[in-house]
């Protein structure tokens, strides 16, 4: 059930990225909602589940783009796994954690995307790709993850209080 919910969330993220987010561009880039959701999920659930969700989200994106099928699946899977490793050594109460992880994950993911993309035939110039796309997206994603995780923590605390009152 949670899996289906996450897939639906990913699809909703993709649709928003294709429709609403182009109107909210900053520094020429739009936020990557799938990365933000993936980072928060992997931060909470660990490496194996982070990698699985990363693969699914990447595959969804690849299917939507109908181009270089597997490129996003691979890069998102790796970033989901690496972010998930932080579950064991980062305090989950730390609101800054997902923000910093999203920033780093976007940079790593972008670098990997360019690297694997070059092997697959997507010849995007390295420097321009890193400076004009990856870095601004990383900043945007970092801020969104910080905000998103704050909302998540607030919602979780509220739900816990409700459960306590109910019991």
């Amino acid at each position, binding site marked *: 059930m949670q899996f289906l919910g996450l897939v639906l969330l990913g699809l909703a993220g*993709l*649709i928003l*990225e*294709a*429709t609403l*987010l*182009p*109107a909210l*561009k900053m520094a*020429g*880039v*739009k936020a*990557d909602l799938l990365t933000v959701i993936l980072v928060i999920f992997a931060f909470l659930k660990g490496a194996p589940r982070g990698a699985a969700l990363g693969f699914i989200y990447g595959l969804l*994106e690849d299917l*939507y*783009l*109908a*181009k270089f099928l597997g490129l*996003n699946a691979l890069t998102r899977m790796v970033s989901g796994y690496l972010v998930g490793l932080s579950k064991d050594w980062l305090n989950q109460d730390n609101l800054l954690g997902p923000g910093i992880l999203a920033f780093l994950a976007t940079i790593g993911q972008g670098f990997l*995307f360019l690297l694997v*993309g070059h092997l697959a035939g*997507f*010849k*995007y*110039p390295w*420097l*321009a*790709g890193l*400076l*004009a*796309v990856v870095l601004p*997206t990383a900043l945007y994603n970092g801020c969104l993850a910080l905000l998103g995780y704050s909302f998540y923590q607030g919602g979780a605390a509220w739900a816990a209080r409700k459960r306590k009152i109910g019991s």
Partner: protein
Amino acid sequence: MGPHRRKLMTPLILLLAALSIYALMRWTARERGHLSILEGGLREALAPAERGITLVVDKTGAWLAAIRDYSRLQAENQALKQEIAALKAANIQLEEYRQENNRLRNLLKFTEVNRNAFEFTVAPVIGRNPSNWYHTLTLGLGSRAGLQKDQVVVTSQGVVGRIIAVTPRTAEVLLILDREGALGGMVQVNRTPGIVEGSPDYGGYLQMIHIARDAPVMENQVVVTSGLGGIFPKGLLLGTVVKVLPEADGLMKRAIIQPAVDFDRLEEVLVITRIKGGIEDAVPGAGAPGAGRTYPGGNPAAGP
């Protein structure tokens, strides 16, 4: 004084008093420059009280009226608020229609100017690429509406891109901004050819690469499609040169081009579904030297 005289005094005093009052009445009946001290003093003394009481009476009357009318006014207020909201919504809708009408009118003007060269289909833009790496649009029409791969997409401003994939109800358009959307272009005024593609370091701009160092390419020159490559017809507007930069090898230079189309605000586009007479002949006169004028709302090379 005897009782008889006292009896006469009383009517006399009354008569005198009556006469005095009559005289006073006659005197005060006239228009006077100043009131007497008594009159003025009294009036001044009573004025604040009068003012206060009048105010209280007026206010009380208004409050009573307001209380009496409260429920009616509340209902009226509610109705007016609803009317304002409905009018605002209608206004917004009308503004949408007005803008859509303007856009479609421009597209229609463009199709009329170019009707001898192309056949068009108007298609709505329903989505954009979710990734930051590619520049594509999704159109709300597909193969069922006659759209096919490699058909060229334009607006009245200029070239948007070409269709790279179609489903029965959608079509994906690769924008000329994309690195993979490279096409043949030329500087309109002096016919200098080059390859036009998305600029990786100037986001949202195009660049014309492989220009010889001594080629007469300068700022503010208009760049149009060259027709080379077999997909884009010759003479469609691409943009305007805003900067010319030397390449690192020292032999070539590149021109940064501001696209004619605002890719972030596309709502409807025209798909060229048929080019009458082939790519080269599609835009009459486009290849002629000196065909260097642009025509607002029309194909820059099509002429008036």
